[in-house]
């Protein structure tokens, strides 16, 4: 049974890998194919499942609620991805230049990342409260809106015409900036200082250094952040669940929240699975993009 013992080694390898491989197989790969299988069934958990072929998919493609949740998710992604990248980069740059006390500032930007999405959503629901919330009080105080005729978006989570989506975006971005900032910071610190020194000698301005050194050398990090940001935007679910429960009038009902509601409130397991297969393929598109273009560049310059 020593290290050099062949049979002992085989036994050891099997025993070391078996639990991980087995659990991953069941809860990832098998679950994925099971999901695909269930998507061909009509099943409410109680009765016997009935094979209905592609009908769930047809129903999905003709359902206004599905298209609505797709639209909500895409709108969320289109706003949150560029904003999270831009603000994250800004935080990364600030953290880099704050060489004294950097760990303190990094910590302060990271606090919202550590608290849970449920807590973050609840705090913001209180801040957004149209009548008693601190946010509207500040907006009035700064004279940004007229107290006598407040614009509809100041109803925040009760306004289906943009206010609820803005609220959802604010929570998501607030919670995400520190995370992206930390990733950008490590990307920035990996750019060799010699480049900047050489540019200084050549008399390059701050902007030129940023444009011709920082941005190109940071592009692998930016690409990586972009992909994980897109994927996380496509999965957004807990914040709308807690903040608005998808409302008002489904204005914040994202794809994953839609799946959750169809499966666990309406018990349409087959239909929910069909939507889940769609979301999986949608996300896979970006994962594949990353593995094609990102692989080598992400880890090394």
């Amino acid at each position, binding site marked *: 049974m*020593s*290290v050099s*013992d062949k049979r002992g080694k085989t036994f*050891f*390898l099997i025993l*070391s890998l078996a639990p*991980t*491989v087995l*659990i*991953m197989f069941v*809860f*990832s*790969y098998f*679950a*994925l194919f*099971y*999901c695909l299988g*269930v998507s061909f069934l009509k099943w409410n958990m109680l009765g016997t499942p009935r094979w209905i072929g592609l009908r769930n998919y047809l129903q999905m493609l003709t359902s206004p609620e599905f298209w609505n949740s797709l639209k909500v998710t895409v709108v969320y992604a289109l706003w949150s991805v560029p904003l999270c990248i831009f603000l994250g980069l800004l935080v990364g740059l600030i953290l880099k*230049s*704050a*060489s*004294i*006390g950097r*760990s303190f*500032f990094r*910590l*302060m*930007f990271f*606090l*919202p990342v*550590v*608290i*849970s999405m*449920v*807590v973050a959503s*609840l*705090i*913001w629901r*209180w*801040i957004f409260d149209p009548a*008693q919330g*601190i946010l509207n009080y500040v907006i009035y105080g700064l004279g940004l809106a007229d107290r006598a005729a407040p614009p509809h978006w100041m109803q925040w989570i009760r306004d289906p015409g943009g206010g609820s989506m803005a609220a959802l975006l604010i929570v998501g971005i607030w919670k*995400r900036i520190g*995370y992206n900032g930390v*990733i950008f910071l*490590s990307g920035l*610190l990996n750019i060799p200082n010699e480049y*900047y020194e050489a540019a200084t000698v050549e008399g390059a301005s701050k902007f030129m250094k940023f444009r011709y050194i920082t941005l190109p050398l940071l592009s692998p990090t930016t690409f*990586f952040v972009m992909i*994980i940001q897109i994927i996380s935007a496509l*999965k957004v679910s*807990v914040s709308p669940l807690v903040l608005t429960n998808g409302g008002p009038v489904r204005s914040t009902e994202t794809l*994953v929240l839609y*799946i*959750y509601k169809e499966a666990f409130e309406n018990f349409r397991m087959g239909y*929910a699975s069909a939507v*889940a297969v769609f*979301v*999986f393929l949608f*996300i896979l598109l970006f994962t594949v993009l990353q593995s094609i273009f990102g692989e080598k560049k992400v880890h090394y310059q």
Partner: protein
Amino acid sequence: MKMTNMTVRRAAKSRQPLSILGYGLLFAFVIIYNVPIFWMILTGFKDSTEVYKYPPTLLPSVFSFKNFIQAWNATPWPRYLANTLFVATAIPLLKIMLSAFAGYALTFKFRGSKFIFLAILGTMMIPEETTLVAKYLVVSKLGWVNTYWALIVPGMVGAFSVFMFRQFFLTMPKELVDAAAVDGCSHFRYMLTVGLPLSKSTALTVGLLSFIDEWNSTLWPLIVINNEKMRMVQIALKAFSDDRGTTWNQLMAGCCFVTLPVLVLFLFVQKKFIEGVATSGIKG
């Protein structure tokens, strides 16, 4: 680790500190950025008349714990906190053990080792959110609904932690294993007495990331637990908020209970934690 040291040294060379004004602005900004968290705590201190005062008071007129005590007694928080602590501790410990052994095993070349490694990494391409329904169906077939099994078992494996342990064991000098072989030491004993203790740093990173992840986990416990006694804190908080409506001081007190443990832990280990996130970049 080597990478981080190098970057730190490089950064030290390029030290161009901000001006005093710059630091002042930055400090003001990070305070404003965290206002929601302060607001949660301050609101928790207010009583039910003050919380609805308009214009709102910034600081509570008296810092009294009365509201916290009321909120604490309104729901069996100790039970929920204990549940969550149990699950959020069990998962990291099991994950460290399983991932360390799997990662170590994958440093060897054998038939199928590459395939197994890729298959493990491949699970990262399957987001939890898309397999929720199927996972729930599997768990209910196993009869695990409303049990700790459902909460713990799917969470105790992780592709990225296997990857991190494999990376670590690959950097370990081969002489260590050879020396163990001469002593007639089995791989099991080798791992338990040499491998695992040496991988302390990796284990700590994996453990911390996983603890905070599990403490904050919401969707999965929401689905597999419907027995009140088995609730995890995040779900308890959601239920508490459905229950309390807009009693904001009570709700914010509840948020404090749920956040405090993880916040305190984070303040102690922030460096390790943030560096873990920066190197992994796959969390969230």
